[in-house]
């Protein structure tokens, strides 16, 4: 028996991989220089980054923050950084940022939009994040009236009278539901609310206002402007278009032929025309369709049109979600004996809306960006204001600084909206993938 065989009794120590495969070098090799084509792409990208930074950064940094006109600004830059240097004139932002944000809103009343904005965050919190106490939803429901009162001012009794309309409707519903059944109660409640608004709300508010005058200084709609206007139009449009869009989507998926064709007609018409034509309608035509002598607020008219526009797009997104649900879900809801509204509310819509979140949020982002179109019908949103500033004698010829500032404001808002949508998708992900 010769002892020639070799049997290893213990394992070898694992060797570390060669240094070119791990760490920073390994990562660079794998991600940036894995082949000749990749290497060329990397070098080209680095050159592009260098070129952009080299041409933009000096302009951004060699700037003036203190000048009061474009000429003074150019002189300051020439003195500080040498003749012929082109630098940014951020002074225009320092001097005009309040106007770009608030428009011609009276400066001693800036606390009102500020407060409305802070309250908006509190009102949105329970809607956006589920771990905020549910009772705050009451505040979210009341917020539109509070914000309207804060922004436009006037007597406090008008918003209270409008809110009272809902209370009237709810009271009627509770009183009548036991005696006449739910259908009659709903009809009576709706009629009661509408009658209250049309006939009683105005006189009641006027009487109370003269008896107990509590109010804020009224601010005219034409003094609104800047980024504040974009947020008002955008947020109102977003809030109002979601419920309307869901109703339209349900109408389009409904079996009732007439409701369906009305919904389809509305959706296809709105989606077929550009927003700017609807804004033309808001600015010139809406009064023609109202009873003679009506003349209601331009911001309200724009908000109505923007809401109708967005609701058609929301309806299509939600319809996609409804169509994506398997038929079994509808059939299961029917088999449980749920009626139409219950099956929609408890089974279908929660799933359909979850599927349509990305589409809904991108519609909202689009709506928010589209609020800039109001500058074409003469409202002073940030772009409209930038034109006004450029026409000013002191700042004639200024371009990039204003556009950069406006672009940054919009970018921040839209980017955070899309980030929120992604986090919401992750949170609602229930595991079938």
């Amino acid at each position: 028996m010769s002892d020639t065989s070799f049997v290893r009794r213990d394992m070898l120590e694992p060797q570390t991989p060669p240094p070119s495969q791990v760490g920073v070098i390994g990562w660079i090799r794998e991600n940036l220089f894995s082949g000749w084509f990749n290497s060329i792409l990397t070098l080209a990208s680095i050159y592009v980054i260098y070129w952009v930074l080299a041409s933009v950064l000096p302009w951004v940094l060699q700037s003036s923050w203190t000048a009061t006109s474009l000429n003074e600004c150019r002189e300051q830059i020439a003195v500080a950084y040498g003749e012929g240097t082109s630098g940014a004139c951020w002074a225009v932002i320092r001097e005009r940022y309040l106007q770009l944000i608030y428009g011609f809103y009276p400066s001693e009343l800036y606390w009102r939009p500020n407060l409305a904005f802070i309250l908006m965050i509190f009102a949105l919190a329970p809607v956006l994040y589920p771990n905020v106490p549910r009772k705050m939803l009451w505040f979210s429901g009341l917020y539109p009236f509070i914000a309207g009162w804060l922004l436009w001012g006037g007597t406090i009794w008008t918003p209270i009278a409008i809110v009272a309309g809902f209370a009237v409707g709810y009271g009627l519903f509770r009183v009548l539901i036991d005696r006449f059944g739910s259908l009659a109660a709903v009809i009576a409640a709706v009629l009661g609310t509408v009658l209250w608004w049309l006939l009683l709300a105005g006189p009641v508010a006027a009487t109370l206002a003269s008896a107990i005058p509590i109010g804020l200084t009224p601010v005219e709609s034409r003094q609104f402007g800047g980024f504040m206007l974009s947020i008002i139009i955008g947020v109102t449009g977003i809030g109002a278009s979601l419920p309307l869009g869901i109703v339209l989507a349900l109408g389009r998926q409904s079996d009732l032929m007439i409701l369906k064709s009305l919904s389809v007609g509305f959706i296809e018409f709105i989606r077929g025309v550009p927003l700017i034509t609807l804004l033309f309608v808001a600015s010139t035509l809406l009064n023609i369709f109202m009873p003679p002598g009506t003349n209601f607020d331009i911001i309200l008219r724009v908000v109505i049109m923007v809401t109708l526009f967005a609701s058609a797009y929301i309806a299509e997104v939600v319809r996609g979600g409804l169509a994506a649900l398997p038929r079994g879900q509808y059939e299961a809801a029917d088999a449980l004996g749920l009626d139409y509204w219950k099956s929609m509310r408890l089974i279908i819509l929660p799933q359909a809306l979850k599927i349509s979140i990305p589409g809904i949020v991108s519609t909202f982002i689009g709506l928010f960006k589209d609020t800039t179109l109001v500058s074409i019908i003469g409202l002073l949103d940030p772009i409209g204001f930038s034109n006004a500033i450029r026409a000013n004698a002191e700042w004639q010829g200024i371009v990039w600084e204003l556009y950069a500032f406006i672009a940054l404001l919009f970018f921040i808002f839209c980017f955070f909206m899309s980030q929120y949508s992604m986090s919401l998708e992750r949170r609602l992900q229930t595991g079938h993938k």
Partner: protein
Amino acid sequence: MSALSETPKESFRLRMLLYDTRYRAITIQIVALMGFMLFAAWLINNMLTNLAELGKPLGFGFLTETSGYDINQSLIEYTSQSSHLRAAFIGLMNTLIVAVLGCALATVVGLLIGILRLSKNWIVARLMTIWIEGFRNVPVLLWIVFFMAVLIETLPAPSAFRGDDPDATMNLFGSIAVTNRGVYIPEPLFASGLGDIPVLGGLFYVSADLIVLLLSLFAGLLVSGLIRNRADRIQEATGDRPRTWHWRILSVFAPPLIVLWMLGFHLGYPELKGFNFGGGIHMRNSLIALWLALGLYTSAFVAEIVRAGIESVSKGQTEAAFALGLRPNRTMNLVILPQALRVIIPPLISQYLNLTKNSSLAIAVGYMDITGTLGGITMNQTGRELECVLLLMMCYLAISLTVSMVMNWYNNSVKLKER
């Protein structure tokens, strides 16, 4: 016995309209229809009352009146003596021009960006993300005015091209002049052209040269298709595919080239005359700014669509195709692309429609599209807001509905057939 098997026949009572589901659907629909018609009647009644008060009865007669304004960019003949209708028609053509140009740019750039964003190269993928997020999250109106400002503020004036030692020179062997008044490119000229053909009784003219050229190109494509079919037949019969690519290239390119030669084709270069360039085709700043802004803005959306489409095809498909022995390019053409396109095409078309609708923002830079002519100057001059906005909406609706009809037809033809 028969009396027992019959169910007692319930007589119709009025409350069944509300509480019997068979009748309730009808009740709801009739109430909804009546409500809608009452609402519409109320609107129309208000409108007629208001219009009568303003003294502007509804009518489209103003369209045939003299417009009295100039349009600086038009494909067909137009003067300030032409009618409002003709101005609107030129606006519609300008809308379509910028829409087609923008869609082409958006597709090319979006495809490139979308593919590069999937690249394994970390830095390239990040750069593409920055491009997409940057373009997507800033309003398109801002991009339009921004590009307009870039063209006006950074490009040299035509006077910079003058003199022995000019500040600016023409690009591409002296054939293209990029100035702050627009871009001048060479124009095609025909030494022995065929003239123009009147269409619709002289309403406008179409170049006969262009028609002949298109016909010859079409004939070439037809011949090329015939050659391919013949090659297919031979391959099926014998198993060998004859080499045809040189014949097919020849058949596509030879007829148009011969036609061009016979028509005496040459290029007319732009030249500096006085304070401005003359000759060549003048592409105005407004068109270029609008084109770049719409195209690049939409390219960010197209890129995301392309990325989603490619990611939607599962990796198993590629692996299965490789297992069948298909080469990479055949895999792409026969397996991946047909499945990815089904996901890509519908949202892509709706982006094209969005671009067309966004082109109505041309009014911000003074490009005379249909919103600028019919919804802008014509509306302000005649004071016919209702008629103008109505016509404007109809034009856009017609474009959108035509495209969606084609779209639905395509969707049905590529739909996965289930159950």
